[in-house]
C-alpha cells in the first residue's frame, strides 16, 4: 500500500466513523404505555383534588404499573430491530436508572419525609431529564417531550389548584405524544437521528 492509498483509506474510515450510528430503536408503544400510566395517575389525583370520588391509589396504581411493565416487556421481546446502537444501550440504562432511583425514593420516603406532591414532581423532573438526555442524542420528538414535561413540572407549582392536572398534561405531552409521533414516523420504531 502506498501513501496515497493509505490516505484514501484513512479518509474513508474517518467518513464512516464520523457518521456514527445515532439512531434510536425504542418501541413507541413503551413510551405510550408509561405516558398513559403517568397521565392517569396524575389525572386521578387531580380528580380527587377537584372533589370527585376515585378509587384509592393502591387499587389503581399497581395494576396500571403492571400493565405498563407488561407492555414494555412484550414490546422488547418482539423487537425486530436490525441493530442495537450504542444510543439504544444508553437509553435503556438512563430510563432504568431513573426509574429505579425514583421508585426507591418513592417507596422509602413518600409520606414520611417527602410530601405526595413533591414526589409527583420528582417523577416528572426525573423523567424529563431522561427524555432530554436520550432525546438530545438521538431523537427530536423525545427531547421536545422532555422539554414539555419539564415545562409542566415548572408550571405546576405556580397553579396549585391544577397541580396534578398540569403534571398529567406533562406526561401526555412528554411521553404519549412523542410515542405516537415515533410510531407514525417509521413502522419499525426507528427514529431519525437529528
Amino acid at each position, binding site marked *: 500500500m502506498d501513501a496515497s492509498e493509505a490516505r484514501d483509506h*484513512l479518509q474513508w474510515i474517518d467518513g*464512516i*466513523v464520523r457518521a456514527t450510528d445515532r439512531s434510536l430503536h425504542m418501541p413507541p408503544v413503551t413510551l405510550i404505555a408509561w405516558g398513559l400510566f403517568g397521565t392517569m395517575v396524575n389525572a386521578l389525583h387531580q380528580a380527587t383534588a377537584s372533589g370527585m370520588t376515585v378509587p384509592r391509589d393502591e387499587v389503581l396504581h399497581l395494576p396500571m404499573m403492571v400493565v405498563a411493565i407488561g407492555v414494555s416487556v412484550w414490546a422488547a421481546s418482539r423487537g425486530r430491530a*436490525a441493530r442495537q446502537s450504542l444510543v*439504544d444501550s444508553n437509553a435503556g440504562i438512563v430510563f432504568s436508572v431513573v426509574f429505579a432511583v425514583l421508585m426507591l425514593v418513592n417507596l422509602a420516603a413518600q409520606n414520611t419525609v417527602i410530601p405526595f406532591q413533591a414526589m409527583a414532581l420528582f417523577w416528572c423532573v426525573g423523567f424529563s431529564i431522561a427524555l432530554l438526555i436520550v432525546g438530545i442524542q438521538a431523537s427530536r420528538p423525545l427531547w421536545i417531550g422532555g422539554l414539555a414535561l419539564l415545562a409542566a413540572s415548572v408550571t405546576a407549582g405556580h397553579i396549585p389548584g391544577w397541580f396534578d392536572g398540569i403534571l398529567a398534561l406533562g406526561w401526555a405531552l412528554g411521553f404519549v405524544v412523542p410515542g405516537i409521533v415515533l410510531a407514525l414516523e417509521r413502522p419499525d420504531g426507528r427514529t431519525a437521528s437529528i
Partner: protein
Amino acid sequence: MDELLLSKVRLAVIAQLLSAEWVTFSELQKSIDVTNGNLGAHLGKLVEAGYVKEEKRFEARRPQSRYRLTKTGRNALLHHVTALQMLVEQHS
C-alpha cells in the same frame, strides 16, 4: 499494518460495528452494499481472526445472525489506523 483490514469490505464491517452494540447480517449487507456470499466470506475471516463475534438466534422463528465487535477487533482497527497515519506522515 493489519493484512485483514486492507480489504475495504472488512474495514467497512469493522467501522459499522464500531458504533453499534450489534448488527444483523442483513443490516450489514444493506449498509455496505455487497452480495450475501461476499459479505459472508469476509465476515467468516473476521470471526476466525477473533475481530468479530457471531451470535446465532431465532427471531420470529427465523434464524438470524448478528455480529458484534470484539476488543481484539477494536484494537486491530486502532493499530491499523495508526499504521496508515504513519505511512502517510512518512511520505509527506
